[in-house]
């Protein structure tokens, strides 16, 4: 347990379960895309400019430059921040009607200051379905619930940002998590950090919501 976890426990939030960020997969895709475009461009040049249509070369060039720019942009963000972490009060799944406070943590790498940083968060529920259409597999996604979340505490110690986020899991407005072969319900916590003269930084965490009503509601409370 590191120093920050001790500090967090002192503030009364038990840190039992860490959820890893799922948004950084886009970086790998972008880097792969950039590499593929560059290789295609180099192959075209090696084969001979005269053999490849000029328009194709221009498209390859533009794609390579665009993808590399985005990759550079993402790499700067990556280099600037450690992997985001989310701490849940328990490793148990969340329940319908639950109210939990989770802690978001991220540390700046080699930055002298993180002044002017603002954090916003939202919870989003998506239905995802896939179906076969001819030889292709189609996927359709629909957001069925989305709500901004309250940032209860936003603090920085040295170069570590910590924010406590209150999450209300609605009782009626969205179904619990579901993971079937072709039909899924996906719960996600999205944290956005913005700072002056720095690119926005989005982190995404999967939440597991069980088909169970929160115990506080079962024992006599009322649902939202």
């Amino acid at each position: 347990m590191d120093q920050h976890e001790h500090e967090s426990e002192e503030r009364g939030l038990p840190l039992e379960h860490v959820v890893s960020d799922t948004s950084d997969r886009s970086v790998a895709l972008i880097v792969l895309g950039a590499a593929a475009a560059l290789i295609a461009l180099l192959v075209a040049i090696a084969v001979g400019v005269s053999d490849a249509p000029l328009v194709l070369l221009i498209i390859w060039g533009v794609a390579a430059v665009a993808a590399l720019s985005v990759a550079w942009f993402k790499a700067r963000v990556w280099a600037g921040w450690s992997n985001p972490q989310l701490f849940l009060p328990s490793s148990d799944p969340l329940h319908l009607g639950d109210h939990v406070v989770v802690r978001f943590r991220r540390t700046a790498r080699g930055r002298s200051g993180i002044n002017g940083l603002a954090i916003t968060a939202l919870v989003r529920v998506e239905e995802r379905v896939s179906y076969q259409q001819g030889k292709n597999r189609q996927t359709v996604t629909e957001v069925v619930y989305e709500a901004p979340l309250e940032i209860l505490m936003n603090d920085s110690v040295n170069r570590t940002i910590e924010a406590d986020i209150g999450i209300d899991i609605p009782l009626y407005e969205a179904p619990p998590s579901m993971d079937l072969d072709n039909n899924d319900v996906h719960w996600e916590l999205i944290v956005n950090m913005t700072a002056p003269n720095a690119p926005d930084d989005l982190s995404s965490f999967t939440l597991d919501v069980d088909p169970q009503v929160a115990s506080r509601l079962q024992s006599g409370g009322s649902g939202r």
Partner: protein
Amino acid sequence: MSDVNLSLKLDTDVAECGDVVAGMVRWGRLESAPRGVRIELRYWTEGRGDSDGGVVAEVELDGAVQGAGRFELLVPEAGPMSFEGKLIRVMWAIELIIDKRLRPDPDISHPITVLPRGGLAMWARQAATPPTVSDQTPPDQTGPDQTR
């Protein structure tokens, strides 16, 4: 098949995830003893995506030209619970199947609604009707009973 008499009566047609669904079945007027009598609890999805689902619990009763039996089937704790979303609809049903030799199997089914754990007590306390999927048959006052 029209002279086959099947009856499926549930104690309740609303259950929670992790609960037992219980009821009574009767069958009669079969020409010969069936290979078996099966009661299945199953769910399936409808909507935009390819359908998922399957039988999650089943019980077998002895085959006879006519008979009756009580059954209990366990709804999985993980559900999925019944719901109707924008792209997905999750449906549940109890099905009585008479397994006849070399003949179409007569069957009868009754939809049920599966609520989240703790959902029944909550809805009962609020004196509200549990949410049902829209095209499911509402229970009559004496409980669900279908006879073919």
